[in-house]
Structures are given as structure tokens and as C-alpha cells.
């Protein structure tokens, strides 16, 4: 967009209670023209959408769903800062979405916005439901009472959106009447002048939010606290008083403008809750649904993932062959393209998981799961809402960690983020399969296949450490925040496919754009370390390879190349590092070759298989697990003549991969979600230490 055009864009904020259909309206108006940005110093995403009506351009800011403008979480702090233009650009107008079935409650937020003195309009959504419940609203009377334009919609069914577009294009926004007098005239006037606000209520907000805004100048914070003390302004007491006052006033208005129906949800919903929230059937249904999702992610993600894998391998091969050989071509084909491929490969899993989650959330089922699981999660320092990230972690930790967003308690969210990578994700499978194939006999014991049993044990180890880790972190992390559960259980509705698809698209985009940068950077570093060595050595090996290739027969070249690939890796910086860490990993039963694989597979666990194949000069098709297994089986220590992959070493390696971080994509996502390097670094160190000790113990037991 050009600068001249930008000035003509009107920015409109949209705010409303959770489950009020705010995102429906946002999606209907903006479609795919959405952008996700950041609020400085905050973890909540900034959702922006763009659209035109006639020749007018609009920018829509989707503020987080909230019940009021009182400080509780980042959501409210962001609403406060945007609507008052504190450190952020103030929008030209606000649309407050009200719930037609819950006008009283949604007007609490609505009238708070009125008192901020910003041009606004009400969008009364879900009129279809209100009609079904026999509620009727006299819109004109309500408009007269509030003095703010009012539009009725049923956004799910795309009704009334024309009226919203008219409202926008005619710029019918109006500043509401002052709805609530807050008292403390003298104090509020002082604050108002100090910050250059327009209305006393803005000053009231600033007093209430002062201690919660991390970006507020400490000097200002002190000044506000001092003034509050002088005037005996207790923010808790004042919030309660204000809420009561508003509700009184709202009730008196609604008596005149709304005729009440039953207001109760229908029998069908109660019957559904009778199953979904049942002490027995509730859990059975939940387990069945999760199993189905898990199954689907495994089954449906595999084909596109193979396709992506193949496509990037082909592209990398094509670049290597087509471009003139040299450092740049190598960097492009082996570093950059492989790196990008390593990011893109996760998209099917992320998109599918978020598709399912959006579906479940949109139908209203999700909050029932929170209700069911809360009691089970609490002893481990987790919240009912932690269950979704943890279960997602069994497919892939990345979407799981991205799904921790709706856990409002900071400590519970952080614990969930920190332990989710211990759930056994699908990238561990190739490692387990190779190692189990090497070390566990393919025999039945009491009718159970031992290899399958071993795999199950690995999954159980992951789950056990996730819960133990959470339990330990509960005592380590300190928090003043009180943990509570106060979740609305919305009525069941049919999912909106548009919302589901948009969520899939947006979540994949966030991952690729934000985590992708970090992953790409680490891939390139790893590539450089694996391709270069101290000067001279690499060249010497290459010269030797050239010379040897001249002398041998055509059919022997393949094996010779494999041999030299292994030699080169050994001479590279990463090979030197692998040898350097050998004393440290000896007690775990690993030689320096496995050490190299540990280092390279920090990019992603499945890289272990490829590296092991190269370093033991297995070569050939990495996908061919049988060849790798057969060759690894024959490996012996050159000095002792013992087998390299004994049972003890194999088990020790499996335990290491179960417990170590070994996934830079997860590191990148944890960084994105916590907005600091502190947690991903501590997490990686902690997990590596636990993995080391676990592997050490395993090796000592089995050897």
C-alpha cells in the first residue's frame, strides 16, 4: 500500500464479550485480508483486517474478547491502551459487539466504552437466537436511551452485515452520553490533565490500569499511586462500585427497551451437556474425539508431509545440479532449501490440529473439556485448559505450544509451555523405530509383540515426565496470581467453516513467518559446521576422493562416495565437536559418531536417522530403514570389537531422545510465545540435563 493511500484508511476497532460473534463479523468483513502483528511488549497477537466499501478503505483492529475494561490479563490491558491511544495509535472509531441474548451483561463493556468519549456504534449480534428465545428489543428506543447508533446482525448467517457496511461507509459513529459518574472529580481532573485525556472516565481507567501496564513510565506509575493514596482511591472498591452503578442504570434502560422471553437455552443443549459433561460418558466421548483427531493428524498429515519432503529434496537436487558448483550453490541447496523445507514440513500438522481445535471451539464443545479436565490437571500445577496443548504435543509440540494462548494464568501457561515438548511427538517415531528394531527382538511375550510394547513404554515415559515436570515446576515457579476457573459454557452451535479455515491459514502463517526465521538461521549454522572443517583437511579429503574415483570401477564409485561422505563429516567442525564431547557421552554408551548425530539432530530429532546413515557410510536411500538397520547391526567398536548398538546403548539413546529438547522449531516457538530467550534457553538446558541423567541411568542398568 502506498503512503498517500494509507492516510485515507479509516481505522476501526472492534470489541465485545467472548463468544459474542465478534470474530464472525471480523472475518465476514475482511475475509483473507488479515494481518497478524505484535503489540510492543505483549504476547497477545494484534489482529488487523483490511477491506474497502466503495472507494473508502478501512483497517479493522480486532481487540481481544473481554467482559469489561478492568485489568485482568493482557487482553484488557491491550483494549485499554488501544482505546485510549496510550503508546499505540488510537482508532478513529469503535464498534462494540453486543449479545442480543445477554444485553445486560454486554452493555457493561458497551457503556464503559461509551464513557471513553471515542466515536462508536453498537452491533447487536445473534438476533436469531434472541428471537428464538422470545426476546424482543426495541432498537429505536434503545438508541434513544444510549445515544449511540445501533445495528442488528446475525453474523453467523451473514444477516445484517450490509447494515454494518452502511454504518462504516456513512461514518455514522457517534460519541455516547456520559453513562456513569465515577466520583473523585478532583482526582480524575488532575489525572486527565496530566495525561491529556478527554473524559474523566479515561482518567479513571488510567488509575485502575496503572499497576498492570508493563510499558507505563515508572515515574508516572508512582505519581498515579501517590495521587490514589492522597485521595483514598481504592481501585478494587471503585471497580465494584462502578459495576453496580452501571448494572443499575442498564437494568432501568432494558426495562423500557426489551421485552423478556424465557432466555433459557433449549432442551437439546441440556441433553447434549448431559452426555458431554457426564462424569463417565463425558470422559469416554472426550477420549474418543481425541483419538479420532490424533488418528486423523497422523493419517492425513503423512501424505502432504511426504510430498513436501520429496519436493524440497528434488528442488535441492535440482539446484545442486543446475547451478555452477561452488559454495553458494551448496549453501542454497543444502543449507537454505533444506532449512526452509524443515519449516514447511510442519504445516500439515499445524493446519490440521488447529482446524480441529477451531472446529471444537466454534461448536462450544471446548469449554466442556476444560470443565472435565480441570480437576485432573490441577495437582500438577496445570489448568483445565492445559489438556489441549498436552494432547496436541503427542502429534507435535509446536501447535501444542501455540495453543497455550487461552490459558490466562501466567504460571499455568508457562508450565504448560515448558513441559509440552516432553509429550512423545511424531518426530520421535523414526528414531524409536530404528532403535527398537535394533535392540528389541521381534517376538511375542504373552501374546504382546515386544517391539510394540517398547514403543508404548516410550510414550508412557514421555507422559510421565510431562506430568512430573509440571509437578516439579509448580514448586519452582513463583506466582502471586490466584488460579481460578470461571469459564462460560456457550450454547452448542454449528461450526463456521470460514472460521475454521481462516484459523488453519493464520496459524500456519504465524509459524512459517515467525518461527521460520529462527529455524532457518540455525539450519544454516548447522550446515556450515557440517560442511566445513579446519583449513586444508576438507580439501585433502576431497583431493583424495577425486584421485580414488579415477582409479576405481564405475560400480564401486557409489560405495566410495559414501565412505568419503563419512570421512568429510568426521573432519568437519561438527565432527570435531562430536569427538570433543565423546568423554561426556561415553558413560551413556555412545561413541563420537553418535555424538555427531546428537549434535546435528538438534535441528530436529528425525535428522538422527539421516546423520547416522551418513556417518556409518550407509548411504543410499535414507527412507530404507531395513538397510540402515542391517548396516548398523554390524557396526563394532574398532578398539574393542564390541557391537556399537547394544541393547544398553539403544535404550539409552531412546531415553535421551524421549527427554531431550532436540527440536529447534520448538525452541523458536517457545521464544515466540514467551517473548524472551530466557525460557527456551532454560528449557533446553533443563531438558538436556534430565535427558543426560535418564540416559546415563538407563545405560548403567542395562549394561
Amino acid at each position: 500500500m502506498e503512503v498517500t493511500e494509507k492516510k485515507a484508511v479509516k481505522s476501526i476497532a472492534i470489541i465485545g464479550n467472548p463468544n459474542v460473534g465478534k470474530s464472525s463479523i471480523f472475518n465476514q468483513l475482511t475475509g483473507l485480508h488479515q494481518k497478524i502483528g505484535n503489540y510492543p511488549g505483549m504476547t497477545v497477537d494484534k489482529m488487523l483486517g483490511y477491506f474497502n466499501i466503495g472507494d473508502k478503505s478501512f483497517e479493522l483492529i480486532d481487540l481481544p474478547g473481554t467482559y469489561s475494561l478492568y485489568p485482568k490479563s493482557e487482553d484488557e490491558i491491550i483494549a485499554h491502551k488501544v482505546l485510549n491511544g496510550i503508546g499505540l495509535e488510537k482508532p478513529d472509531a469503535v464498534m462494540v459487539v453486543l449479545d442480543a441474548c445477554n444485553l445486560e451483561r454486554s452493555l457493561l463493556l458497551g457503556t464503559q466504552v461509551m464513557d471513553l468519549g471515542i466515536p462508536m456504534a453498537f452491533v447487536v449480534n445473534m438476533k436469531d437466537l434472541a428471537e428464538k428465545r422470545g426476546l424482543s428489543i426495541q432498537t429505536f428506543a434503545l438508541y434513544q436511551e444510549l445515544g449511540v447508533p445501533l445495528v442488528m446482525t446475525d453474523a453467523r448467517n451473514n444477516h445484517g452485515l450490509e447494515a454494518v457496511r452502511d454504518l462504516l461507509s456513512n461514518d455514522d459513529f457517534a460519541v455516547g452520553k456520559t453513562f456513569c459518574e465515577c466520583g473523585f472529580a478532583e482526582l480524575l481532573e488532575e489525572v486527565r490533565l496530566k495525561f491529556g485525556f478527554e473524559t474523566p472516565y479515561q482518567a479513571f481507567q488510567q488509575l485502575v490500569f496503572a499497576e498492570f501496564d508493563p510499558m507505563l513510565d515508572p515515574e508516572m506509575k508512582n505519581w498515579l499511586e501517590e495521587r490514589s493514596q492522597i485521595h483514598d482511591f481504592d481501585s478494587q472498591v471503585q471497580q465494584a462500585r462502578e459495576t453496580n452503578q452501571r448494572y443499575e442504570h442498564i437494568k432501568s434502560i432494558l426495562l423500557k427497551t426489551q421485552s423478556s422471553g424465557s432466555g433459557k437455552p433449549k432442551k437439546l443443549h441440556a441433553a447434549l451437556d448431559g452426555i458431554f459433561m457426564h462424569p463417565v460418558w463425558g470422559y469416554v466421548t472426550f477420549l474418543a474425539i481425541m483419538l479420532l483427531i490424533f488418528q486423523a493428524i497422523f493419517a492425513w498429515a503423512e501424505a502432504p508431509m511426504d510430498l513436501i519432503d520429496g519436493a524440497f529434496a528434488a528442488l535441492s537436487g535440482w539446484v545442486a545440479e543446475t547451478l555452477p558448483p561452488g559454495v553458494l550453490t551448496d549453501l542454497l541447496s543444502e543449507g537454505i532449501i533444506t532449512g526452509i523445507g524443515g519449516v514447511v514440513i510442519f504445516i500439515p500438522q499445524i493446519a490440521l490440529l488447529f482446524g480441529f481445535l477451531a472446529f471444537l471451539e466454534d461448536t462450544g464443545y471446548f469449554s466442556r473439556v476444560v470443565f472435565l479436565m480441570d480437576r485432573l490437571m490441577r495437582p500438577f500445577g496445570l489448568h483445565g485448559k492445559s489438556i489441549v496443548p498436552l494432547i496436541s504435543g503427542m502429534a507435535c509440540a509446536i501447535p501444542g505450544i501455540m495453543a497455550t494462548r487461552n490459558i490466562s494464568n501466567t504460571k499455568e501457561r508457562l508450565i504448560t509451555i515448558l513441559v509440552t515438548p516432553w509429550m512423545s511427538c511424531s518426530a520421535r517415531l523414526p528414531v524409536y523405530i530404528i532403535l527398537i528394531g535394533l535392540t528389541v527382538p521381534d517376538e511375542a511375550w504373552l501374546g504382546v509383540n515386544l517391539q510394540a510394547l517398547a514403543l508404548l513404554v516410550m510414550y508412557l515415559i514421555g507422559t510421565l515426565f510431562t506430568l512430573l515436570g509440571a509437578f516439579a515446576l509448580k514448586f519452582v515457579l513463583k506466582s502471586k496470581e490466584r488460579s481460578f476457573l470461571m469459564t462460560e459454557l456457550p450454547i452448542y452451535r454449528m461450526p463456521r467453516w470460514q472460521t475454521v479455515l481462516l484459523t488453519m491459514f493464520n496459524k500456519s502463517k504465524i509459524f512459517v513467518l515467525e518461527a521460520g526465521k529462527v529455524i532457518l538461521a540455525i539450519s544454516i549454522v548447522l550446515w556450515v559446521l557440517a560442511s566445513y572443517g579446519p583449513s586444508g583437511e576438507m580439501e585433502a579429503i576431497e583431493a583424495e576422493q577425486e584421485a580414488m574415483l579415477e582409479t576405481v570401477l564405475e560400480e564401486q564409485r557409489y560405495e566410495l562416495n559414501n565412505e568419503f561422505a563419512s570421512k568429510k563429516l568426521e573432519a568437519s567442525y561438527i565432527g570435531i565437536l562430536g569427538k570433543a564431547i565423546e568423554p561426556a557421552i561415553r558413560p551413556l554408551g555412545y561413541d563420537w559418531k553418535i555424538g555427531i548425530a546428537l549434535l546435528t539432530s538438534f535441528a530436529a530429532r528425525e535428522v538422527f536417522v539421516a546423520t547416522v546413515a551418513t556417518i556409518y557410510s550407509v548411504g543410499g536411500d535414507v527412507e530404507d530403514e531395513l538397510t540402515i538397520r542391517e548396516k548398523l547391526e554390524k557396526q563394532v567398536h574398532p578398539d574393542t570389537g564390541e557391537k556399537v548398538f547394544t541393547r544398553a546403548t539403544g535404550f539409552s539413546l531412546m531415553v535421551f531422545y524421549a527427554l531431550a529438547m532436540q527440536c529447534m522449531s520448538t525452541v523458536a516457538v517457545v521464544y515466540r510465545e514467551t517473548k524472551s530467550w530466557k525460557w527456551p534457553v532454560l528449557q533446553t538446558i533443563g531438558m538436556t540435563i534430565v535427558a543426560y541423567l535418564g540416559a546415563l541411568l538407563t545405560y548403567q542398568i542395562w549394561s
Partner: protein
Amino acid sequence: MTAAGLKINQIYEIERITTSPLMVRMMEMGVMPGKSISLLQKAPFKGPMAFLIEGNILALRIEEAELIQIKVA
């Protein structure tokens, strides 16, 4: 009596909310004196309780339910 002591499908009325940091949060979600309240479901092992409060269903832990003082409607 508090909402934590409700039996399934008894209909009571909210009398007041005990003063606590959660009071404002409850009020803004529509938990207000004068509203009718009934218990719909209880999660096992003293887990959360789901209340119907004037047409809206709200899940609360027992600790939160204990803050809601109720009386016979």
C-alpha cells in the same frame, strides 16, 4: 448457604457475592445478586461445577462457588 452446596436442579437466588479479588470478575460475567442460579453438572472428584445463571452456563471451581451466597428463590 453458598452455591457450592447446591444440589442438581434446585433453583436458588443469588443473595450476594463475598468480597474478594474475584468479585468484580463474577459481576462482569453476570453473577449478580437477584439472579436465579441452579446446578447443572458436577465434575467428578470435587472438580468444577457448572451453574445455570439466568440463561448462561458458567463453570466454576468449588472455591469460586463458595464465594456466591444464595437463598431460596
